[in-house]
Protein backbone atom coordinates (compact mmCIF):
# COMPACT_ATOMS: atom_id res chain seq x y z
CA UNK A 1 0.00 0.00 0.00
CA UNK A 2 1.35 3.45 -0.82
CA UNK A 3 2.64 5.64 1.99
CA UNK A 4 1.89 9.31 2.41
CA UNK A 5 4.84 11.63 1.96
CA UNK A 6 5.76 14.19 4.51
CA UNK A 7 4.39 17.58 3.52
CA UNK A 8 0.89 16.16 3.46
CA UNK A 9 -1.71 18.64 2.23
CA UNK A 10 -3.60 20.22 5.08
CA UNK A 11 -7.26 19.64 4.24
CA UNK A 12 -7.72 23.20 2.96
CA UNK A 13 -4.48 23.55 0.98
CA UNK A 14 -4.97 25.00 -2.46
CA UNK A 15 -3.40 27.30 -4.99
CA UNK A 16 -6.52 29.46 -4.72
CA UNK A 17 -7.15 29.41 -8.46
CA UNK A 18 -10.55 27.73 -8.64
CA UNK A 19 -12.38 30.96 -9.36
CA UNK A 20 -10.38 31.16 -12.61
CA UNK A 21 -11.95 27.92 -13.91
CA UNK A 22 -15.62 28.52 -14.68
CA UNK A 23 -16.52 24.86 -15.20
CA UNK A 24 -15.61 24.10 -11.58
CA UNK A 25 -18.63 26.12 -10.49
CA UNK A 26 -20.99 23.80 -12.34
CA UNK A 27 -23.43 21.45 -10.67
CA UNK A 28 -24.42 18.26 -12.45
CA UNK A 29 -27.52 16.42 -11.34
CA UNK A 30 -27.67 18.68 -8.30
CA UNK A 31 -24.12 17.84 -7.21
CA UNK A 32 -21.01 19.99 -7.47
CA UNK A 33 -18.64 18.92 -10.24
CA UNK A 34 -15.55 17.25 -8.83
CA UNK A 35 -13.11 16.90 -11.65
CA UNK A 36 -10.42 14.30 -11.04
CA UNK A 37 -9.63 13.48 -14.68
CA UNK A 38 -6.99 16.07 -15.45
CA UNK A 39 -4.65 13.43 -16.83
CA UNK A 40 -7.18 12.92 -19.66
CA UNK A 41 -7.64 16.62 -20.22
CA UNK A 42 -7.38 19.70 -18.03
CA UNK A 43 -10.00 22.32 -17.46
CA UNK A 44 -9.44 25.81 -18.88
CA UNK A 45 -9.06 29.09 -17.01
CA UNK A 46 -10.89 32.22 -18.13
CA UNK A 47 -7.57 33.64 -19.29
CA UNK A 48 -7.38 30.92 -21.96
CA UNK A 49 -11.05 30.96 -22.93
CA UNK A 50 -10.95 34.74 -23.21
CA UNK A 51 -7.72 34.75 -25.23
CA UNK A 52 -9.23 32.38 -27.79
CA UNK A 53 -12.48 34.35 -27.96
CA UNK A 54 -10.67 37.69 -28.07
CA UNK A 55 -8.51 36.53 -30.94
CA UNK A 56 -11.58 35.46 -32.90
CA UNK A 57 -13.54 38.55 -31.92
CA UNK A 58 -10.93 41.22 -32.60
CA UNK A 59 -7.75 40.02 -34.30
CA UNK A 60 -8.58 37.17 -36.66
CA UNK A 61 -6.76 37.05 -40.01
CA UNK A 62 -4.68 34.43 -41.74
CA UNK A 63 -1.01 34.43 -40.80
CA UNK A 64 2.30 34.91 -42.63
CA UNK A 65 1.11 36.40 -45.88
CA UNK A 66 -1.02 39.48 -45.23
CA UNK A 67 0.36 43.01 -45.42
CA UNK A 68 -2.60 44.82 -43.85
CA UNK A 69 -2.44 45.79 -40.15
CA UNK A 70 -4.97 43.17 -39.02
CA UNK A 71 -2.76 40.45 -40.52
CA UNK A 72 0.20 41.92 -38.64
CA UNK A 73 -1.79 41.60 -35.40
CA UNK A 74 -2.57 37.98 -36.17
CA UNK A 75 1.07 37.22 -37.03
CA UNK A 76 2.22 38.83 -33.82
CA UNK A 77 -0.33 36.89 -31.77
CA UNK A 78 0.62 33.55 -33.34
CA UNK A 79 4.39 34.01 -33.38
CA UNK A 80 4.34 35.72 -29.99
CA UNK A 81 2.63 32.64 -28.55
CA UNK A 82 5.33 30.43 -30.06
CA UNK A 83 8.06 32.55 -28.50
CA UNK A 84 6.47 32.50 -25.04
CA UNK A 85 5.78 28.77 -25.23
CA UNK A 86 9.40 28.08 -26.16
CA UNK A 87 10.56 30.22 -23.25
CA UNK A 88 8.16 28.43 -20.87
CA UNK A 89 9.83 25.10 -21.61
CA UNK A 90 13.36 26.48 -21.76
CA UNK A 91 13.78 25.98 -25.48
CA UNK A 92 13.98 29.58 -26.66
CA UNK A 93 17.59 29.33 -27.84
CA UNK A 94 18.13 29.04 -31.59
CA UNK A 95 19.46 25.49 -31.14
CA UNK A 96 15.80 24.62 -30.57
CA UNK A 97 12.87 24.83 -32.93
CA UNK A 98 9.27 24.88 -31.72
CA UNK A 99 6.67 23.48 -34.11
CA UNK A 100 2.92 23.55 -33.52
CA UNK A 101 1.06 20.26 -34.03
CA UNK A 102 -2.50 19.19 -33.20
CA UNK A 103 -1.43 17.22 -30.14
CA UNK A 104 1.52 15.20 -28.91
CA UNK A 105 0.26 12.28 -30.99
CA UNK A 106 0.95 14.28 -34.15
CA UNK A 107 4.34 15.34 -32.79
CA UNK A 108 5.32 11.67 -32.43
CA UNK A 109 3.91 10.73 -35.83
CA UNK A 110 5.82 13.63 -37.36
CA UNK A 111 9.15 12.46 -35.96
CA UNK A 112 8.44 8.80 -36.76
CA UNK A 113 7.65 9.73 -40.38
CA UNK A 114 10.11 12.52 -41.11
CA UNK A 115 13.09 11.45 -39.04
CA UNK A 116 12.29 7.76 -38.83
CA UNK A 117 11.73 6.95 -42.50
CA UNK A 118 15.03 8.57 -43.41
CA UNK A 119 17.12 7.15 -40.58
CA UNK A 120 15.73 3.75 -39.60
CA UNK A 121 16.33 0.66 -41.70
CA UNK A 122 16.91 -3.08 -41.51
CA UNK A 123 19.24 -3.99 -38.66
CA UNK A 124 18.32 -0.89 -36.69
CA UNK A 125 16.29 -0.90 -33.48
CA UNK A 126 13.88 1.55 -31.91
CA UNK A 127 13.62 1.33 -28.14
CA UNK A 128 10.52 2.30 -26.23
CA UNK A 129 9.37 1.32 -22.73
CA UNK A 130 6.65 -0.82 -21.25
CA UNK A 131 4.95 2.24 -19.78
CA UNK A 132 4.18 4.11 -23.00
CA UNK A 133 0.86 5.56 -24.10
CA UNK A 134 -0.39 4.13 -27.44
CA UNK A 135 0.67 7.42 -29.05
CA UNK A 136 4.25 6.49 -28.23
CA UNK A 137 3.87 2.84 -29.24
CA UNK A 138 1.92 2.46 -32.47
CA UNK A 139 3.82 5.02 -34.62
CA UNK A 140 7.05 3.16 -33.81
CA UNK A 141 5.41 -0.21 -34.56
CA UNK A 142 4.36 1.14 -37.95
CA UNK A 143 7.79 2.60 -38.64
CA UNK A 144 9.66 -0.58 -37.67
CA UNK A 145 7.31 -2.78 -39.68
CA UNK A 146 7.64 -0.54 -42.74
CA UNK A 147 11.41 -0.21 -42.51
CA UNK A 148 12.23 -3.76 -41.45
CA UNK A 149 13.66 -2.56 -38.14
CA UNK A 150 13.26 -4.04 -34.67
CA UNK A 151 11.08 -2.56 -31.93
CA UNK A 152 12.23 -3.35 -28.41
CA UNK A 153 10.76 -2.58 -25.00
CA UNK A 154 12.60 -1.48 -21.92
CA UNK A 155 11.02 -3.31 -18.98
CA UNK A 156 9.63 -1.70 -15.87
CA UNK A 157 10.42 -3.10 -12.44
CA UNK A 158 7.92 -4.06 -9.74
CA UNK A 159 7.72 -0.41 -8.60
CA UNK A 160 6.82 0.70 -12.11
CA UNK A 161 10.21 2.26 -12.73
CA UNK A 162 12.82 1.97 -15.45
CA UNK A 163 16.31 0.66 -14.83
CA UNK A 164 19.24 2.68 -16.14
CA UNK A 165 21.33 -0.50 -16.24
CA UNK A 166 18.81 -2.21 -18.47
CA UNK A 167 18.81 0.89 -20.69
CA UNK A 168 22.59 0.77 -20.87
CA UNK A 169 22.50 -2.91 -21.83
CA UNK A 170 20.10 -2.12 -24.65
CA UNK A 171 22.23 0.77 -25.87
CA UNK A 172 25.36 -1.35 -25.69
CA UNK A 173 23.91 -3.70 -28.28
CA UNK A 174 24.80 -0.94 -30.71
CA UNK A 175 21.78 -1.09 -32.96
CA UNK A 176 19.49 1.36 -31.16
CA UNK A 177 19.00 4.45 -33.33
CA UNK A 178 16.17 6.10 -31.41
CA UNK A 179 14.77 5.84 -27.88
CA UNK A 180 11.33 7.23 -27.20
CA UNK A 181 9.99 7.34 -23.66
CA UNK A 182 7.54 9.20 -21.53
CA UNK A 183 8.57 11.85 -19.04
CA UNK A 184 5.67 10.87 -16.75
CA UNK A 185 3.55 7.74 -17.04
CA UNK A 186 -0.17 8.37 -17.39
CA UNK A 187 -0.97 5.12 -15.51
CA UNK A 188 1.83 4.57 -13.02
CA UNK A 189 2.49 8.22 -12.33
CA UNK A 190 6.20 7.45 -12.49
CA UNK A 191 8.42 10.45 -13.15
CA UNK A 192 11.34 9.21 -15.21
CA UNK A 193 14.87 10.58 -14.71
CA UNK A 194 14.93 12.18 -18.14
CA UNK A 195 18.33 13.86 -18.03
CA UNK A 196 20.06 10.65 -16.91
CA UNK A 197 18.36 8.71 -19.66
CA UNK A 198 18.99 11.19 -22.47
CA UNK A 199 22.63 11.50 -21.45
CA UNK A 200 23.14 7.77 -21.99
CA UNK A 201 21.25 7.89 -25.25
CA UNK A 202 23.37 10.77 -26.50
CA UNK A 203 26.57 9.02 -25.48
CA UNK A 204 25.42 5.98 -27.43
CA UNK A 205 24.90 8.16 -30.50
CA UNK A 206 21.16 7.59 -30.63
CA UNK A 207 18.33 10.11 -30.86
CA UNK A 208 15.87 10.65 -28.00
CA UNK A 209 12.20 11.57 -28.08
CA UNK A 210 10.51 12.47 -24.79
CA UNK A 211 6.72 12.44 -24.46
CA UNK A 212 6.03 15.30 -22.10
CA UNK A 213 2.22 15.11 -22.21
CA UNK A 214 1.90 14.37 -18.47
CA UNK A 215 4.90 16.43 -17.35
CA UNK A 216 4.59 19.96 -18.75
CA UNK A 217 1.23 20.63 -17.04
CA UNK A 218 2.48 19.57 -13.64
CA UNK A 219 6.12 20.52 -13.02
CA UNK A 220 8.86 22.84 -14.26
CA UNK A 221 10.21 21.50 -17.56
CA UNK A 222 13.40 22.80 -19.11
CA UNK A 223 13.94 21.11 -22.44
CA UNK A 224 17.54 22.26 -22.80
CA UNK A 225 18.49 20.85 -19.38
CA UNK A 226 16.61 17.61 -19.99
CA UNK A 227 18.78 17.14 -23.05
CA UNK A 228 16.31 15.37 -25.32
CA UNK A 229 16.61 15.73 -29.07
CA UNK A 230 12.83 15.96 -29.35
CA UNK A 231 10.32 16.87 -26.67
CA UNK A 232 6.58 16.81 -27.41
CA UNK A 233 3.54 17.80 -25.38
CA UNK A 234 -0.11 18.57 -25.80
CA UNK A 235 -1.99 21.79 -25.08
CA UNK A 236 -5.31 20.47 -23.82
CA UNK A 237 -3.74 18.81 -20.78
CA UNK A 238 -1.84 22.00 -19.88
CA UNK A 239 -4.91 24.23 -19.29
CA UNK A 240 -4.73 25.12 -23.00
CA UNK A 241 -7.20 24.59 -25.85
CA UNK A 242 -7.78 21.39 -27.77
CA UNK A 243 -6.34 21.21 -31.28
CA UNK A 244 -2.84 22.40 -30.39
CA UNK A 245 0.30 20.51 -29.44
CA UNK A 246 3.98 21.30 -29.39
CA UNK A 247 7.11 19.67 -30.74
CA UNK A 248 10.42 21.08 -29.59
CA UNK A 249 13.30 19.69 -31.60
CA UNK A 250 16.99 20.25 -32.05
CA UNK A 251 17.29 22.69 -34.91
CA UNK A 252 20.18 20.91 -36.58
CA UNK A 253 18.30 17.61 -36.56
CA UNK A 254 15.13 19.24 -37.88
CA UNK A 255 17.01 21.11 -40.61
CA UNK A 256 18.00 17.77 -42.11
CA UNK A 257 14.49 16.31 -41.99
CA UNK A 258 12.01 16.17 -44.84
CA UNK A 259 8.59 17.71 -44.21
CA UNK A 260 5.77 15.65 -42.72
CA UNK A 261 2.80 17.21 -44.49
CA UNK A 262 3.06 19.49 -47.49
CA UNK A 263 0.99 22.38 -48.84
CA UNK A 264 0.71 26.10 -48.26
CA UNK A 265 2.97 28.06 -45.91
CA UNK A 266 5.61 25.35 -45.66
CA UNK A 267 7.12 25.89 -49.11
CA UNK A 268 9.76 28.29 -50.37
CA UNK A 269 8.73 27.81 -53.98
CA UNK A 270 6.69 25.35 -56.00
CA UNK A 271 7.47 24.28 -59.54
CA UNK A 272 5.31 21.92 -61.53
CA UNK A 273 7.16 18.79 -60.46
CA UNK A 274 9.12 19.80 -57.40
CA UNK A 275 9.12 22.19 -54.49
CA UNK A 276 11.58 23.63 -52.00
CA UNK A 277 10.86 24.08 -48.32
CA UNK A 278 10.43 27.12 -46.17
CA UNK A 279 12.73 27.64 -43.18
CA UNK A 280 12.05 26.16 -39.75
CA UNK A 281 9.59 25.97 -38.07
CA UNK A 282 7.31 26.59 -41.06
CA UNK A 283 8.61 23.57 -42.99
CA UNK A 284 6.60 21.47 -40.53
CA UNK A 285 3.43 23.56 -40.47
CA UNK A 286 1.52 22.84 -43.68
CA UNK A 287 -1.64 24.82 -44.33
CA UNK A 288 -3.41 27.34 -42.18
CA UNK A 289 -2.34 26.57 -38.63
CA UNK A 290 -4.47 26.37 -35.50
CA UNK A 291 -3.99 30.09 -34.90
CA UNK A 292 -6.56 30.78 -32.19
CA UNK A 293 -5.46 27.59 -30.44
CA UNK A 294 -1.80 28.63 -30.44
CA UNK A 295 -2.84 31.99 -29.02
CA UNK A 296 -4.84 30.15 -26.36
CA UNK A 297 -1.86 27.98 -25.49
CA UNK A 298 0.25 31.12 -25.21
CA UNK A 299 -2.27 32.39 -22.64
CA UNK A 300 -2.12 29.00 -20.90
CA UNK A 301 1.64 29.11 -20.38
CA UNK A 302 1.37 32.71 -19.19
CA UNK A 303 -1.23 31.55 -16.70
CA UNK A 304 0.89 28.62 -15.52
CA UNK A 305 3.96 30.85 -15.21
CA UNK A 306 2.03 33.36 -13.13
CA UNK A 307 0.97 30.62 -10.72
CA UNK A 308 4.50 29.24 -10.82
CA UNK A 309 5.34 25.70 -11.87
CA UNK A 310 7.33 25.02 -8.69
CA UNK A 311 4.23 25.85 -6.67
CA UNK A 312 2.09 23.68 -8.94
CA UNK A 313 4.43 20.76 -8.42
CA UNK A 314 4.57 21.25 -4.63
CA UNK A 315 0.81 21.50 -4.39
CA UNK A 316 0.19 18.45 -6.54
CA UNK A 317 2.81 16.40 -4.71
CA UNK A 318 1.15 17.14 -1.40
CA UNK A 319 -2.26 16.33 -2.85
CA UNK A 320 -0.95 13.08 -4.28
CA UNK A 321 0.43 12.05 -0.93
CA UNK A 322 -2.93 12.81 0.65
CA UNK A 323 -4.76 10.89 -2.06
CA UNK A 324 -2.55 7.82 -1.64
CA UNK A 325 -3.07 7.84 2.12
CA UNK A 326 -6.81 8.13 1.83
CA UNK A 327 -7.09 5.52 -0.92
CA UNK A 328 -5.23 3.13 1.36
CA UNK A 329 -8.20 3.30 3.73
CA UNK A 330 -10.40 1.44 1.28
CA UNK A 331 -10.36 -2.34 1.70
CA UNK A 332 -9.45 -4.24 -1.45
CA UNK A 333 -8.09 -1.15 -3.20
CA UNK A 334 -4.66 -1.46 -4.88
CA UNK A 335 -2.78 1.46 -6.44
CA UNK A 336 -0.31 0.69 -9.25
CA UNK A 337 3.04 2.43 -9.62
CA UNK A 338 5.68 3.84 -7.25
CA UNK A 339 4.78 3.88 -3.57
CA UNK A 340 6.41 7.21 -2.84
CA UNK A 341 4.41 10.32 -3.77
CA UNK A 342 7.67 12.18 -4.29
CA UNK A 343 8.53 9.85 -7.16
CA UNK A 344 5.21 10.25 -8.92
CA UNK A 345 2.97 12.78 -10.55
CA UNK A 346 -0.54 13.68 -9.45
CA UNK A 347 -2.48 10.62 -10.42
CA UNK A 348 -3.40 7.25 -8.96
CA UNK A 349 -4.61 4.33 -11.05
CA UNK A 350 -6.18 1.62 -8.92
CA UNK A 351 -8.38 -1.45 -8.76
CA UNK A 352 -10.92 -2.54 -6.14
CA UNK A 353 -11.49 -6.24 -5.58
CA UNK A 354 -14.82 -7.42 -6.92
CA UNK A 355 -15.59 -4.27 -8.88
CA UNK A 356 -14.81 -3.60 -12.50
CA UNK A 357 -13.13 -0.19 -13.01
CA UNK A 358 -15.96 0.86 -15.32
CA UNK A 359 -18.42 0.34 -12.53
CA UNK A 360 -16.19 2.20 -10.09
CA UNK A 361 -16.06 5.18 -12.44
CA UNK A 362 -19.77 4.99 -13.21
CA UNK A 363 -20.71 5.06 -9.54
CA UNK A 364 -18.23 7.85 -8.82
CA UNK A 365 -19.68 9.80 -11.75
CA UNK A 366 -23.18 9.47 -10.32
CA UNK A 367 -21.82 11.08 -7.16
CA UNK A 368 -20.43 13.97 -9.23
CA UNK A 369 -16.83 12.74 -9.13
CA UNK A 370 -15.22 12.48 -12.57
CA UNK A 371 -12.61 9.74 -12.77
CA UNK A 372 -11.53 7.61 -15.70
CA UNK A 373 -11.65 3.84 -16.18
CA UNK A 374 -10.14 1.62 -18.82
CA UNK A 375 -6.75 0.84 -20.29
CA UNK A 376 -5.80 4.54 -20.46
CA UNK A 377 -4.41 3.95 -23.96
CA UNK A 378 -1.65 1.81 -22.49
CA UNK A 379 -2.59 -1.77 -23.31
CA UNK A 380 0.98 -3.11 -23.38
CA UNK A 381 1.44 -1.75 -19.86
CA UNK A 382 -1.88 -3.14 -18.66
CA UNK A 383 -0.91 -6.60 -19.90
CA UNK A 384 2.46 -6.26 -18.19
CA UNK A 385 0.60 -5.41 -14.97
CA UNK A 386 -1.76 -8.33 -15.51
CA UNK A 387 -4.78 -6.04 -15.55
CA UNK A 388 -7.48 -5.41 -18.13
CA UNK A 389 -8.34 -2.00 -16.80
CA UNK A 390 -7.96 0.32 -13.82
CA UNK A 391 -9.81 3.32 -12.47
CA UNK A 392 -7.73 6.49 -12.36
CA UNK A 393 -8.07 9.69 -10.36
CA UNK A 394 -5.81 12.57 -11.35
CA UNK A 395 -5.34 16.07 -10.03
CA UNK A 396 -4.59 19.42 -11.61
CA UNK A 397 -3.57 22.90 -10.64
CA UNK A 398 -7.13 23.60 -9.41
CA UNK A 399 -7.66 20.42 -7.37
CA UNK A 400 -8.16 20.74 -3.60
CA UNK A 401 -7.99 18.22 -0.79
CA UNK A 402 -11.76 18.19 -0.13
CA UNK A 403 -12.22 16.76 -3.60
CA UNK A 404 -10.08 13.80 -2.64
CA UNK A 405 -12.35 13.35 0.36
CA UNK A 406 -15.35 13.38 -1.97
CA UNK A 407 -13.69 10.73 -4.12
CA UNK A 408 -13.11 8.51 -1.09
CA UNK A 409 -16.74 8.92 -0.02
CA UNK A 410 -17.91 8.01 -3.51
CA UNK A 411 -15.68 4.94 -3.61
CA UNK A 412 -16.91 3.78 -0.21
CA UNK A 413 -20.52 4.22 -1.30
CA UNK A 414 -19.82 2.46 -4.59
CA UNK A 415 -18.31 -0.50 -2.84
CA UNK A 416 -21.42 -0.76 -0.72
CA UNK A 417 -23.57 -1.17 -3.85
CA UNK A 418 -21.48 -4.12 -4.96
CA UNK A 419 -21.34 -5.67 -1.54
CA UNK A 420 -25.10 -5.85 -1.06
Amino acid at each position, binding site marked *: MPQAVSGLAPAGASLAVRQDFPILGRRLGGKPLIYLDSAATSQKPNAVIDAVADYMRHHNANVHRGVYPLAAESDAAYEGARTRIAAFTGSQAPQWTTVFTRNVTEAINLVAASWGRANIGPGDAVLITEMEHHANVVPWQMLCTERGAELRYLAIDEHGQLSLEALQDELDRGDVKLVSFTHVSNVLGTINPVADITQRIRTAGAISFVDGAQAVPHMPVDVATLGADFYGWTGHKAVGPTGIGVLHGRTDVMEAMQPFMTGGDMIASVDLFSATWNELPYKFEAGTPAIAEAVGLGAAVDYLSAVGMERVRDHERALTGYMLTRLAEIPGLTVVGPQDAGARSGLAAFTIDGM*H*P*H*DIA*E*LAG*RAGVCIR*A*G*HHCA*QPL*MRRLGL*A*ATARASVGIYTEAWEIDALIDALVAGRA*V*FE*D
Partner: protein
Amino acid sequence: MDDLYRDHILDHYKRPRNFGELEPHDLERAEHNPLCGDELGVHIRVADGRIEDLRFYGHGCAISQAAASIASEELKGMELTEAATLDADWMLDLLGIPISATRRKCALLGLKVVRGAVSGDSSWPEQSR
Protein backbone atom coordinates in the same frame (compact mmCIF):
# COMPACT_ATOMS: atom_id res chain seq x y z
CA MET B 1 -31.49 1.66 -4.77
CA ASP B 2 -29.35 2.66 -7.71
CA ASP B 3 -31.36 2.63 -10.96
CA LEU B 4 -28.49 1.12 -12.92
CA TYR B 5 -27.10 -1.41 -10.47
CA ARG B 6 -30.43 -3.06 -9.71
CA ASP B 7 -30.45 -6.34 -7.86
CA HIS B 8 -30.98 -8.44 -10.96
CA ILE B 9 -28.01 -6.79 -12.67
CA LEU B 10 -25.72 -7.38 -9.73
CA ASP B 11 -27.03 -10.90 -9.40
CA HIS B 12 -26.23 -11.69 -13.04
CA TYR B 13 -22.84 -9.99 -12.66
CA LYS B 14 -21.87 -11.96 -9.59
CA ARG B 15 -23.39 -15.26 -10.75
CA PRO B 16 -23.32 -15.10 -14.53
CA ARG B 17 -25.41 -17.78 -16.30
CA ASN B 18 -23.91 -19.77 -19.14
CA PHE B 19 -20.36 -18.56 -18.60
CA GLY B 20 -17.24 -20.47 -19.54
CA GLU B 21 -16.17 -22.40 -22.63
CA LEU B 22 -18.34 -24.78 -24.60
CA GLU B 23 -16.61 -27.70 -26.28
CA PRO B 24 -17.33 -28.76 -28.92
CA HIS B 25 -18.98 -25.69 -30.42
CA ASP B 26 -20.07 -24.83 -33.97
CA LEU B 27 -19.84 -21.04 -33.92
CA GLU B 28 -17.63 -18.61 -32.06
CA ARG B 29 -16.71 -14.95 -31.92
CA ALA B 30 -14.70 -12.72 -29.60
CA GLU B 31 -14.45 -8.93 -29.57
CA HIS B 32 -12.89 -6.08 -27.67
CA ASN B 33 -14.80 -3.14 -26.36
CA PRO B 34 -12.45 -0.52 -27.87
CA LEU B 35 -13.32 1.96 -25.14
CA CYS B 36 -12.04 -0.06 -22.21
CA GLY B 37 -10.23 -3.07 -23.62
CA ASP B 38 -12.70 -5.53 -22.17
CA GLU B 39 -12.95 -8.77 -24.09
CA LEU B 40 -16.01 -10.92 -24.52
CA GLY B 41 -16.40 -14.09 -26.53
CA VAL B 42 -19.13 -16.61 -27.22
CA HIS B 43 -19.21 -20.32 -28.10
CA ILE B 44 -22.43 -21.58 -29.71
CA ARG B 45 -23.55 -25.13 -30.38
CA VAL B 46 -26.14 -25.47 -33.14
CA ALA B 47 -28.83 -28.09 -33.70
CA ASP B 48 -31.68 -27.94 -36.27
CA GLY B 49 -30.92 -24.32 -37.08
CA ARG B 50 -31.30 -23.35 -33.45
CA ILE B 51 -28.93 -22.28 -30.69
CA GLU B 52 -28.83 -25.52 -28.75
CA ASP B 53 -26.40 -24.23 -26.15
CA LEU B 54 -24.02 -21.29 -25.67
CA ARG B 55 -21.39 -19.95 -23.28
CA PHE B 56 -19.90 -16.48 -22.90
CA TYR B 57 -16.34 -16.04 -21.71
CA GLY B 58 -14.06 -13.09 -21.00
CA HIS B 59 -14.19 -10.22 -18.57
CA GLY B 60 -15.94 -6.93 -18.28
CA CYS B 61 -17.97 -4.58 -16.18
CA ALA B 62 -21.23 -5.37 -14.42
CA ILE B 63 -23.27 -4.03 -17.32
CA SER B 64 -21.57 -6.05 -20.04
CA GLN B 65 -21.44 -9.23 -17.97
CA ALA B 66 -25.04 -8.97 -16.79
CA ALA B 67 -26.24 -8.21 -20.32
CA ALA B 68 -24.49 -11.30 -21.68
CA SER B 69 -25.81 -13.44 -18.85
CA ILE B 70 -29.41 -12.26 -19.25
CA ALA B 71 -29.23 -12.59 -23.03
CA SER B 72 -27.84 -16.11 -22.78
CA GLU B 73 -31.03 -17.31 -21.12
CA GLU B 74 -33.18 -15.92 -23.94
CA LEU B 75 -30.88 -17.09 -26.71
CA LYS B 76 -30.96 -20.74 -25.80
CA GLY B 77 -33.29 -22.44 -28.22
CA MET B 78 -33.63 -19.42 -30.48
CA GLU B 79 -33.49 -19.92 -34.27
CA LEU B 80 -30.22 -18.66 -35.76
CA THR B 81 -32.13 -16.59 -38.30
CA GLU B 82 -33.91 -14.82 -35.47
CA ALA B 83 -30.74 -14.32 -33.45
CA ALA B 84 -29.11 -12.70 -36.46
CA THR B 85 -31.74 -9.98 -36.57
CA LEU B 86 -31.85 -9.04 -32.88
CA ASP B 87 -31.36 -5.33 -32.44
CA ALA B 88 -30.28 -3.02 -29.67
CA ASP B 89 -33.85 -2.54 -28.48
CA TRP B 90 -34.14 -6.23 -27.73
CA MET B 91 -31.07 -6.13 -25.54
CA LEU B 92 -31.89 -2.88 -23.78
CA ASP B 93 -35.47 -4.01 -23.06
CA LEU B 94 -34.19 -7.26 -21.59
CA LEU B 95 -31.73 -5.40 -19.38
CA GLY B 96 -34.51 -3.19 -18.09
CA ILE B 97 -32.27 -0.37 -16.84
CA PRO B 98 -31.57 3.09 -18.27
CA ILE B 99 -28.36 2.91 -20.31
CA SER B 100 -26.52 6.17 -20.97
CA ALA B 101 -24.66 6.82 -24.20
CA THR B 102 -21.33 6.20 -22.50
CA ARG B 103 -22.35 2.67 -21.44
CA ARG B 104 -24.14 1.59 -24.62
CA LYS B 105 -21.23 -0.42 -25.90
CA CYS B 106 -20.94 -2.22 -22.56
CA ALA B 107 -24.59 -3.21 -22.79
CA LEU B 108 -24.41 -4.28 -26.42
CA LEU B 109 -21.10 -6.14 -26.54
CA GLY B 110 -22.69 -9.53 -25.75
CA LEU B 111 -25.28 -9.18 -28.49
CA LYS B 112 -22.59 -7.98 -30.88
CA VAL B 113 -20.50 -11.12 -30.48
CA VAL B 114 -23.57 -13.33 -30.84
CA ARG B 115 -24.59 -11.59 -34.05
CA GLY B 116 -21.00 -11.86 -35.21
CA ALA B 117 -20.89 -15.58 -34.48
CA VAL B 118 -24.23 -16.24 -36.16
CA SER B 119 -24.05 -13.99 -39.24
CA GLY B 120 -20.52 -12.62 -39.45
CA ASP B 121 -21.89 -9.10 -38.99
CA SER B 122 -19.30 -7.01 -37.18
CA SER B 123 -21.27 -3.79 -36.78
CA TRP B 124 -22.71 -2.55 -33.50
CA PRO B 125 -26.41 -3.41 -33.06
CA GLU B 126 -28.58 -0.43 -34.03
CA GLN B 127 -31.44 1.01 -32.07
CA SER B 128 -34.67 1.19 -34.08
CA ARG B 129 -36.39 3.75 -31.92
